[in-house]
């Protein structure tokens, strides 16, 4: 399963889901689905999100289990 830090970084920059959605050209609902891990975004959207949240895609998204491997 794909995990992410979208909610955390969005809160850090004080964006609402709607704000972030407007920046990356998707609906607020799509941002909510991504944050809940319900939906894996396309590479294009992942890159747009990383840019909007001033980070890299691999800092924003990772596969479940990979986190433990690094430890």
């Amino acid at each position, binding site marked *: 399963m794909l995990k992410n830090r979208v909610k955390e970084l969005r809160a850090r920059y004080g964006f609402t889901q*709607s704000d972030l959605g407007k920046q990356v*050209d*998707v*609906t607020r609902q799509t941002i*909510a*689905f991504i944050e809940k891990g319900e939906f894996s*975004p396309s590479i294009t959207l992942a890159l747009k999100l990383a840019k909007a949240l001033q980070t890299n895609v691999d800092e924003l998204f990772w596969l479940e289990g990979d986190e433990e491997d690094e430890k």
Partner: protein
Amino acid sequence: MKNDFRLQYPLWQMGFIILLGAFAYGLSSPMTEVVNTETENSIMISIGGTQSLFAMIALLLYFILLAVFASQLRKHNKNNPHQKVSAFSIRPPEYLEQDEGMTYITRKAAQKVYTFITWSLPLLAAFAIILPLPKLFIIWGILLVALGQYWIYYREVRSHLKEETE
């Protein structure tokens, strides 16, 4: 999103289907008299008292629902000029595909509906072949499948959209 007409569209369709089922009951088993002589050519169809009342009430309710539906559709199209809904589109208007997230939930809901149709239609056909069902029951069966597909679609989409938090 919760007030989005496209989300409510399956519920409207379910309402129309239920009234159509009631209308079908009202019109079931009519008496038909065909006169075809040298001097007269006529067909007379008579329906039972209670059943005709049922058919008339169902038809009246159908037109009332149609009027309310048309008014809601007009209201939606006026408020959402870039996302107009057409009741006569070949593509079902309940598809929510304005971006990849919404396309994802539409696809999930459509998959569930497809699975339901895959099983229910052959089963319905089998019942109709094996059992000596009256025409009305077969019509109700078809309407039940139509009702089921809208309900499955609505529930699936609704479940994704109900926990919306900013």
